[in-house]
């Protein structure tokens, strides 16, 4: 099915999110939509999938204009979208979730649905247990379910909005294989991303968006530097690997064991020094988060000890760790990091040291303006945090970290950020390492990020933790193999 977008405009208040966008998307191939955070990619795709209504412009399906009032409307025309955050029903069983949105009849066609799910799974290599609960699936499997559901509803056009955010390398391989099969089957596949390498390995052609406008279109093979210039309007690079000089030991982990119902990690020994950056690599759910949380006092270890600056803090709560200069930055910004409905300024007040009982709003306002400028946040002091874009929320989180911290623990410091923002985030973090001798302990599913910014790396494989590996001299391939289980004692290899 051929999709044409003609002169699409969309405003949000003063922001011109889509500015006269005209694109033609052919069927039977994978069409990339590339752009940095806030370029207007998601908005455009939400318009195409009936989620938003454009202020002006026209959508044509196979040459004839259509008006889409809702996502249900869009799927009737054969257009379906996988959103950035899975829009499914965790408490439901796979088969029930699969039938959600099925338009006809009073009774559910359970047997037919089961058969359809099986045949779609077989065709695209999905591994879905119809009776499992959606909440127990991995993000990759939830995507498979959503793809299957849309196909069953008759989708000819499938839009994927940043589908590789938060899934492992293996899951990504599987997803890409499925996308290629979809394109071979004659579907129109639209792939929204801010990652160049994904465009390079997957997309037949790509359109680049910047500040709401289409700034270029090109076909494979790509000139990556040209794409970067289109995305940002200038050349951008990560720069050289740098390391801060190491100082005294900040964090000591001795024979630590942490567990929950699913997983146990044990026997972790590590010393982290001032200025040092340690990256935790591994497939999602291999225990990295457990270790990070234990080092912040958010999870109580079952064995072993945690020392901060020569003091045994084992079994103490997070607030005790905070008083010693430990800070935890979660990945779920609006769920754990920020308080929705409170303003940026109110966050600055809360994060700062309390002085007296009454808030000095004037000082707070100046401080907030100052942080907004320093951290390059696009937003105003009295704006509720949830109205900031994802990248600006991440900047806000960093802006809330007090100066002079001893140890920063981070989950996915740059998840969902475009290259320029990610580079900027690490610049501010590295500056803390150099100037304030802060140690950083972070987990990420981005191997390049781990290799580029860490001094040493811990690899996690289903609850086992490797000895620290120097990042310098390790290649992405080597790290990828370690994550897959090579070299671990019980080293059975995970098949991709």
């Amino acid at each position, binding site marked *: 099915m051929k999709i044409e977008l003609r002169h699409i405009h969309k405003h949000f*208040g003063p922001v011109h999110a889509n500015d006269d966008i005209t694109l033609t998307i052919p069927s039977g191939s994978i069409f990339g939509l590339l752009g940095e955070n806030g370029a207007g990619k998601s908005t455009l795709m939400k318009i195409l999938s009936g989620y938003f209504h454009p202020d002006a412009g026209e959508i044509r399906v196979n040459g004839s204009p259509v008006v889409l009032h809702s996502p249900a409307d869009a799927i009737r025309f054969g257009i379906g979208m996988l959103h950035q955050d899975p829009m499914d029903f965790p408490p439901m069983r796979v088969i029930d979730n699969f039938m959600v949105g099925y338009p006809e009849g009073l009774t559910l066609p359970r047997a037919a649905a089961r058969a359809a799910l099986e045949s779609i799974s077989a065709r695209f290599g999905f591994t879905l247990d119809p009776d499992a609960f959606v909440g127990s699936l991995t993000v990759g499997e939830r995507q498979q379910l959503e793809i299957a559901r849309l196909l069953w509803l008759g989708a000819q056009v499938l839009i994927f909005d940043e589908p590789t955010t938060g899934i492992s390398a293996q899951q990504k391989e599987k997803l890409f294989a499925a996308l290629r099969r979809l394109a071979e089957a004659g579907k129109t596949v639209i792939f929204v991303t801010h990652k160049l390498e994904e465009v390079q390995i997957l997309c037949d052609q790509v359109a680049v968006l910047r500040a709401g406008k289409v700034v270029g279109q090109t076909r494979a093979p790509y000139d990556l530097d040209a794409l970067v210039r289109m995305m940002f309007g200038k050349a951008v690079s990560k720069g050289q690997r740098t390391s801060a000089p190491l100082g005294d030991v900040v964090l000591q982990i001795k024979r630590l064991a942490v567990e929950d119902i699913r997983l146990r990690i044990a026997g972790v020994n590590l010393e982290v020094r001032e200025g040092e950056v340690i990256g935790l690599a591994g497939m999602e759910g291999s225990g990295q988060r457990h270790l990070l949380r234990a080092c912040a006092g958010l999870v109580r270890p079952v064995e072993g000890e945690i020392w901060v600056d020569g003091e045994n803090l084992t079994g103490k709560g997070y607030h005790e760790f905070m008083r010693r200069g430990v800070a935890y930055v*979660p990945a779920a910004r609006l*769920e754990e990091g920020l*308080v929705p409905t*409170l303003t940026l300024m109110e966050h600055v*007040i809360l*994060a700062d040291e309390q002085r007296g009982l*009454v808030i000095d709003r004037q000082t707070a306002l100046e401080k907030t303006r100052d942080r907004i400028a320093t951290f390059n946040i696009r937003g105003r002091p009295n*704006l509720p945090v949830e109205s900031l874009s994802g990248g600006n929320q991440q900047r806000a989180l960093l802006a809330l970290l007090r100066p002079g911290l001893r140890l920063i623990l981070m989950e996915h410091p740059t998840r969902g950020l475009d290259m320029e923002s990610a580079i900027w985030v690490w610049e501010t973090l590295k500056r803390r390492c150099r100037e304030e001798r802060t140690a950083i302990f972070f987990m990420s599913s981005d191997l390049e990020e781990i290799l580029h910014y860490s001094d040493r790396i811990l690899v996690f494989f289903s609850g086992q933790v490797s000895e620290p590996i120097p990042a310098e001299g390790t290649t992405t391939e080597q790290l990828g193999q370690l994550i897959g289980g090579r070299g671990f004692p019980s080293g059975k290899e995970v098949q991709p």
Partner: protein
Amino acid sequence: MTDRRTGFLFMLLAVLVALIFTSLVLVIAGASPVAAYWYILKGSLGSWTNFANVMVAWVPLLLATSGLLITFAAGLWNIGIEGQIVLGGIFTTWVLRLLQHSAMSPALILILAIAAGAIGGALWSVLAGVLKVYGGVNEIFGGLGLDFVAVALTLWLIFGPWKRPGIGSMSGTEPFPEKLWLPTVAGSRLSLWALLLGLIGAAVVYFLLSGTYFGLKLKAVGKNPRAAHLLGIPTTAYLMSAFLLSGLFAGLAGAVQVTAVYHRLIPAISSGYGWLGLMVSMLINFQPAWVAPVTLFFAILNIGSIQLPIVLKLDSSLSGVLQGALVLSFLLMAGARQRWQEKHGQEVSRE
């Protein structure tokens, strides 16, 4: 159009909708709406005595609503407020009964009794808090349960241990001697002490929620306890202090009902001010600045409609209809306003 002006327009619209709805009810009941509204005004503001009565009703409603805003700030629905007012009344009565024949000065006895009322309300509220925080009982269910227990406790006291000489009756316990009444303005039932207490209470809550670290942290806990924890706020302590303070204000309301209005414990000691306070809180969208004027308006409606059965042969519950209609139409208009803003792409910012 500016944010503020659209807000005002929608508010006006809400009042209009409520008036039209109530007028319709009146027409169906066979009464003239204009006459009814006129008598409400006359019955509440028509004379000094009537206005003094409005103030008498205003004080406990003001206290209860102020307290509720604290729990609402912490994201809690303190449905147990009715029971907390009742417990305030019971504790006050208890101390007055203990000390009424003692040689202590009446002023001191009254102060002790009112303080006891505050403690009683706070205890009942903290109980709901303990049930929530340590027992996993949602505060709505816990509070509702405790409301019923509180009413049952009142009835048991009135018909049991504290019954009037001879036989207990629905008219309540034996009235206290006049020296243990909060002094009133000559010729009226209004106590300036109670009024002062109410005004100070409302001012304290306004200040607490809009200007202090405590208020801001409470809001953070209410909106996102997990993020609040990571920001270093002891969430459990804040939840419990919200319960405690809210109950304290409710208990004061109960104490005022006993010492300034009824001078004894009666079965309906709370007069439903807890429920009314919940309605007001929703109506004003939990904004502390609006508590005093809107509770005053509700008190006017309550007192004004007392006249209606006599002059228009209407039930005095008409004020309830009007109050309910107001709350609903305000909530409706808040929703309508949000949709209007989304459609017109106005940025939602908070000043």
